[in-house]
């Protein structure tokens, strides 16, 4: 009962467990974002009942993937404020790890995808150690990651073992659960949703934990955080490790879904914008709901515009994402989630004006 009393949900006591749950969520914006994210996941889970067309299901699958990858970047860039611009390297490395394990060593993606996370985290750790050792910060760190992307692209273009310039693909002749190869789109969607849900929960847990507070401290003022005794090197490394591991796993799943990978396709700043940056920026960088909401809005919208207004001409998706990024930064730096939060706070204030009076009296 005390939880209900403390919540800003008005004088009426809640009845029943559902009512109490609702009050707890309503009182807490973080929980509210979590609840909306989970509801969105559930709603997408039911989408195949309505959406039958493989084309639209494909868009939905990519939106789910973008949401998940967006979360992995949101933790590094949005929470910890690290200028990890070329996050795509982890997705690329994850994709390559999964396909190499599958085609060269016959290791199934159920093991290959987690292994991709480990490999990508290894690269994340190397990046963290190198950049921390030499004190690369801000702009220089951003440039370092981009240089690494270009260098890796060249390396993979020449490396015969990973298919060099030809790239690598999956043999699709025999669909089976074991190989994570399916003839229909639905299983891909549910695997993606499981990933997304895990991502949402991990992100929420980090945000609410002490770890998340340290990340935010890094983002807001690194020098001040260090002065207050926060081990900034440790938390930068942890942020990179978490982001790269999650990115690598996303890359493994991306591989299984698109079934083909080649260096210019994945080590690419254009794909980086579409796959990594767009969803969190448009949805609201640093928020919990941002990546999920952003991905579910921008991917379908970009495809819709490409399919209908411009008859599939090349360049349309780039225009849409570019315009989205520019507009988000200029007109809603807190993204769509920021707009929703403003609405939520206004509604809350209107519903419980007397509580606000009380709070004001308390502060005075």
């Amino acid at each position, binding site marked *: 009962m005390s939880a209900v009393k403390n919540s800003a949900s008005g004088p009426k006591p809640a009845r029943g467990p559902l009512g109490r749950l609702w009050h707890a969520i309503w009182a807490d914006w973080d929980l509210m974002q979590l609840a909306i994210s989970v509801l969105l996941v559930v709603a997408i889970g039911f989408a195949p009942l309505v959406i039958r067309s493989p084309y639209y299901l494909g868009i939905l699958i990519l939106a789910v993937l973008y949401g998940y990858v967006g979360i992995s970047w949101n933790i590094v860039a949005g929470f910890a404020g690290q200028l990890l611009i070329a996050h795509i390297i982890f997705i690329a490395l994850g994709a390559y790890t999964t396909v190499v394990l599958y085609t060269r060593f016959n290791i199934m993606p159920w093991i290959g995808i987690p292994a991709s996370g480990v490999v990508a985290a290894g690269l994340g750790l190397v990046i963290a150690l190198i950049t921390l050792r030499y004190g*690369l910060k801000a702009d220089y760190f951003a440039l370092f990651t981009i*240089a690494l992307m270009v260098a890796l692209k060249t390396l993979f273009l020449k490396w015969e073992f990973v298919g060099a310039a030809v790239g690598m693909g999956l043999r699709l002749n025999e669909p089976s659960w074991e190989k994570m190869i399916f003839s229909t789109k639905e299983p891909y969607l549910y695997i993606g949703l499981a990933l997304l849900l895990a991502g949402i929960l991990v992100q929420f847990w980090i945000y609410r934990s002490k770890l998340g507070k340290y990340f935010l401290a890094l983002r807001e003022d690194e020098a001040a955080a260090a002065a207050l005794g926060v081990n900034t090197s440790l938390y930068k490394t942890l942020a990179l490790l978490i982001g790269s591991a999650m990115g690598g796993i996303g890359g493994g799943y991306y591989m299984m879904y698109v079934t083909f990978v080649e260096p210019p396709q994945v080590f690419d700043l254009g794909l980086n914008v579409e796959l990594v940056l767009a969803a969190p920026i448009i949805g609201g960088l640093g928020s919990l709901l941002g990546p999920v909401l952003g991905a579910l809005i921008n991917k379908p919208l970009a495809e819709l515009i490409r399919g209908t207004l411009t008859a599939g001409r090349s360049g349309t998706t780039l225009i849409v994402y*570019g315009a989205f990024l520019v507009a988000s930064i200029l007109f809603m730096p807190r993204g769509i989630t920021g707009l929703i939060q403003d609405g939520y706070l206004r509604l809350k204030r209107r519903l419980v004006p007397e509580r606000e009076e009380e709070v004001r009296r308390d502060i005075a």
Partner: protein
Amino acid sequence: MQFDTFLQTLVNGLFIGGVYGLVSIGLTLIYGVMLILNFAHGEFMMLGMYVAFWAFTLGGLDPYVSVVIAAALIFLLGAAIQRGLIQRVLTAHPLNQIVLLLGVSTLLIGLVQFFWTADPRAIHVPYETEVIQVGFLRLSIPRMVAFFASLVTSVALYVFLQYTKTGKAIRAVSQNRDAALLMGIDVKYIYMLTFGLGAAVTAAAGVFLTPTFRILPTIGQSFSVTAFVVVVLGTMGNFIGAFVGGLIIGVVEVFAGYYLGGDVKIIASMTVFILVLLFRPAGLFGRKRA
């Protein structure tokens, strides 16, 4: 490697390096004045190349003539982008600045691809493959012209910055924004002007390359990366450092191309870049570690 091959490779490297230098001067100028990394830098170059292409295809204008049109147009575009977009994020988190510029870059590439397709274009001028023989050196005319035109443009910009009142104002803003403001310099105007100038010289560099380079919507991206390498090498914000850095990277790339093959040469400049970032992040001309 024979001495004549060595010299020939060196000259080829210096020729392309001069163009890198001009592109990097644009980038370093913008960074020096408003402390912003222009991630859309290569796109101004790409747009300059398209202006030259259309001037050549529709109006039959030689690229060495249309460079004036390209520079003027891209100057206006750059100034408009600075005033309309970048000015608003100058005090924002660096991530917001980078994302905005990546957005601009993506948007420009998308628009060019949309209207002019992703097909490679080329300008076929009569002197495309002409060479002059100096001793045992074979000097490609368009490459040589690109080098000297870049050099002249760079020197002109340098003289402008050193000796004109506006140039001095630009340098004043880059040295101390607040002091410049107090001295009555219109800092916002200087920002706009600087960004326009940086974009314009980059577009000019692109035009100088059109006789020998294929034109693609995404061609700017690789030049952006090269320019980042060069400005870090030559110390961010350092004008002469950018040109010298351009020459160095040009030579490194051409020699790497000679030894490793053309498509791997970028790994050499990336190696230089990563080494400089790690061991001398302030660059060759910086006094202390950044």
